[in-house]
């Protein structure tokens, strides 16, 4: 273990007692937010044109090869988790986290995301989920979420998942307008998400969330209103709604570059967003994070709150990121390479032999401060005073004067306007 790093110069206004308390002993952030495990299942039937997640399209593979790849991937993900856990906590922590011991905290949330996890056979998916409880202590009330694509839903699937402790499913609805679903290259009909939600409920899974995408080229205001009405009728308790992002390097990115697809329009997206807030707000949803709404605080996504509160989590699987006390590491995005690396490391310890890791970074205080702010301020109630990094008085004054942030009961949070201009707010706060 490397020695204690030299003290850093902190650009604080005042020499507050214990300047680095926001790093060492935060009140709601960091370890106080819980401890999570993210498991990535990259397989999709087909890669949607806008998606730049770590995805392996397996629709075109012959069934035997696909079965083989999925089988080996599930084995790899289990091995990878076991090795990361066995290495102990300090092996993942940055050099300056000398106060941490080697024991893992109790897991408060698990998230199985994709790709399309539900493309795996129910048994394989169950074994992925079960691996967490086999390697770590799982809290009795842990939130265990699985992402599900509507066309893969079945009561049998959800029953299997409920049996291994899944408490929550997140269904990729995206839209309820047929031509929008077609543009997005989705493989389900508008009825799919509602049917999937009903099946999940029938299987006894209490918490159900829908993912939406708005601002897709060609989507009208009326169509978006209709999608929102269908969401309200679906009787779900959580919604994640994202403005369509066009990434370079995706088919959508290339089509926009060549002028074959209109680029997204910031003003249109802003209007769609206002409608979302208004309609779902009236329907009893609390808008608790920039892109997330829930029926009451109990329905918030605990795993995602962990991200926004700068918490610690293990990341397992292709392209997955882990974070511990200011150090982050991530695996290769290629599923075959991931399987190969984990498999050839054999029974060796984490850090020895072949590694699925593609990179890691240790954040300095300025970077941690920026992250603490741009993550923490995404949440409606903002940051607890004890979790706030030092902010230059002039920078704070500037952000306050621009009407982007406000201070309430000592907490720093975004104003309604500043919430959507968070990048700007953070830029000013870190000036």
């Amino acid at each position, binding site marked *: 273990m490397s020695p204690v790093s030299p003290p850093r110069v902190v650009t604080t206004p005042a020499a507050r007692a214990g300047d680095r308390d926001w790093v060492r002993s935060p009140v709601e952030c960091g370890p106080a937010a819980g401890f999570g495990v*993210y498991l990535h299942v990259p397989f999709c039937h087909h890669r949607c044109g806008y998606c730049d997640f*770590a995805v392996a399209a397996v629709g075109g593979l012959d069934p035997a090869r696909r079965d083989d790849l999925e089988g080996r991937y599930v084995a790899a993900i289990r091995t990878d988790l076991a090795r990361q856990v066995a290495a102990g906590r300090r092996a993942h922590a940055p050099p300056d986290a000398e106060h941490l011991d080697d024991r893992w905290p109790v897991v408060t949330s698990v998230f199985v*995301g994709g790709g399309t996890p539900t493309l795996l056979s129910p048994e394989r998916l169950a074994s992925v989920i079960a691996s967490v409880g086999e390697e770590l202590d799982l809290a009795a009330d842990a939130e265990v979420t699985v992402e599900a694509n509507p066309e893969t839903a079945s009561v049998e699937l959800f029953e299997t998942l409920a049996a291994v402790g899944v408490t929550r499913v997140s269904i990729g609805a995206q839209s309820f307008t047929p031509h929008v679903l077609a543009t997005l290259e989705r493989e389900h009909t508008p009825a799919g998400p509602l049917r999937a939600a009903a099946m999940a409920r029938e299987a006894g899974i209490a918490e159900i969330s829908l993912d939406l995408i708005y601002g897709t080229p060609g989507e009208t205001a009326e169509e978006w209103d209709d999608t929102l009405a269908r969401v309200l009728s679906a009787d779900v308790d959580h919604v*994640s709604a*994202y*403005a369509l*992002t066009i990434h370079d390097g995706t088919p959508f990115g290339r089509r926009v570059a060549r002028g074959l697809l209109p680029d997204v329009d*910031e*003003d249109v*997206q*802003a209007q769609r*967003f206002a409608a979302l807030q208004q309609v779902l707000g009236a329907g009893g949803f609390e808008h608790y994070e*920039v*892109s997330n709404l829930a029926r009451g605080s109990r329905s918030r996504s605990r795993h*995602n709150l962990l*991200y*926004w509160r700068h918490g610690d*989590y293990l*990341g397992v699987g292709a*392209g*997955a*990121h*882990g*974070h511990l006390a200011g150090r*982050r590491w*991530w695996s290769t995005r290629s599923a075959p390479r991931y399987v190969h690396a984990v498999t050839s490391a054999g029974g060796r310890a984490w850090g020895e032999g072949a590694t699925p890791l593609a990179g890691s*970074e240790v954040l300095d205080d300025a*970077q941690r401060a*920026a*992250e603490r702010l*741009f*993550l923490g301020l*995404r949440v409606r109630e903002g940051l607890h005073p004890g979790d706030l990094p030092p902010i230059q008085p002039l920078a704070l004054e500037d952000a306050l004067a*621009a*009407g*982007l942030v406000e201070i309430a009961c000592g907490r720093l949070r975004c104003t309604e306007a500043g*919430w*959507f*201009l*968070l*990048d*700007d707010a*953070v*830029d000013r706060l*870190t000036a």
Partner: protein
Amino acid sequence: MTYRTERIRNFCIVAHVDHGKSTLADRMLQLTELVDVRHMRSQYLDKMDIERERGITIKAQTARLPYKPLGDVADEYLLNLIDTPGHVDFSYEVSRALNACEGAVLLVDAAQGMEAQTIANLYLALEADLEIIPVLNKIDLPAARPDEVAREIAAIIGGDPGDVLRISAKTGEGVVAVMDAIVDRVPPPKGDPEGPTRALIFDSIYDPYRGTLVYLRVVDGELKPGDRIRLLATGFEGEIDDLGVHAPEETAIDALGVGEVGVLSAAIKEVSEAKVGDTITLAGRGARTVRPLPGYREPLPMVFSGLYPVDSDDFPQLRDALDKLRLNDASFSFEPETSAALGFGFRCGFLGLLHLEIITERLDREFSIPLVTTAPSVRYRVTLEGVVDGDTGEPEVIEVANPQDLPEPNRIAEIREPTVNAMILTPTTYVGSVMQLCEGRRGTMVAMDYLTEERVELRYQLPLAGIITDFFDQLKSRTRGYASLDYERGEYLAADLVRVDLLLNGEPVDAFSSIVHRDEAYAFGKSMTEKLKELIPRQLFDVPVQAAIGSKIIARETIKAKRKDVLAKCYGGDVSRKRKLLEKQKEGKKKMKSVGSVEVPQEAFVSALRTSGGTGD
């Protein structure tokens, strides 16, 4: 050693841009075995980084070539070569070179044919009374049309098309014949070896280690190291420390005699003390009676632009950098100015847009000072209403290089603008389109000559302001690259000009003001407001962008407030990416200039005007 005068030939190579001057110089260096094969590189004489990267010559260069014509049993000849730049911004370098020679190789690309600078340089050479050796280059190219181009050349300079030499500077074919023609046809320098020493300064550059280096040609007498010299115009006196020739690397020499070209250093601190065109003589009693050689007109800046440090703390560094650059480029000028929008900076004068680009690139590269460059403008002459010069009794005239300095309309009796005498060579098929372009830029046709059936020479008087935006690009795109342009300073002409101001958020931004013709003001204002709307990122509030003449608003756009910037998802894997994006944006912000409460990107200051152009398109 000095050569006997009859054995010396001083010549330069002139041509249109890219016709192969520097490549021909390469072949001559190789032929005379001056440069070791191992050290040979293309365009050997182009030494500056910018020249090598852009593949163009900016500074004229000299090389001394000892040459023995085949079969000539007598001793060798000394050929002094001057390679010149082809670009119009640097044509004054060509005039200087011509004055140091008795002959000129007129090089013409056999595929391109005669172009505007071919003709312009030919006229300069004829005016200087030089022996002209026409040479067709690039005959190795499949697209070469040697017979046709030879006829074109003969049609202009007279003589027989068959006499035009045909070479490939690339392969070396025919280059010996060029050398022989130089020996045979270029007269040796005339001069009095016994007379009082007179040498012409045709260039002076600043070397950080050795001070000012003076390039000279001896006309009468002789120069030796240790001689005490006097420069007639500036009165500088001092001893020659080093005397050398370029062979082609600098080599010390013990004397330079009549007709020889070389370089000297003395304790000359600044290039301005060794003015190009000045006469060098030996100090002493006789010096006062020495008649100065005919000098050159100093190149005058034509195009002006404000240079401002993005970070106002860099102002002293910028001043130092400009001082240093001026040390070896006397053709650019600068004086401090202030802008309400941009703070402290300098109004700089350049020979043209390429020159401007090169200086700003050197500032960025050699001094790394982030800069805002305002749109190029010209220098107007403004006659003031009712103000009479005390000495002459004439109405007072002021010069205005910064639109901001234009007096209130009621104080102006007349504004005159600089024009250029432009020559455009174009294939006949594009004549209509070229004329349309020139008329759109308020040009007046002076002459139209058919050089051959396919090629027309158009002469226009054009306001300089009309060609320093995108005139050249337009000309090229309208003629598929076949037309070429050359111009020289013309007279000042009265015009109905007004200043268009641009307002951001109700505040005038002086750096965006321009002087334009009244008829073009509306179109100009509209295109400027539209451009700025595109170039300036959305702010937290609506920003009106207006164009105005005085207090009258002539165009208006609104940059709508930024609505949302965070609607994407942000989960585990997105955090690093998001952080890096924010770090990058922060870097980007450093390149913004905040004008009032509006953040304006640096490039907006130039791009807005550069692409809007005139109204002729």
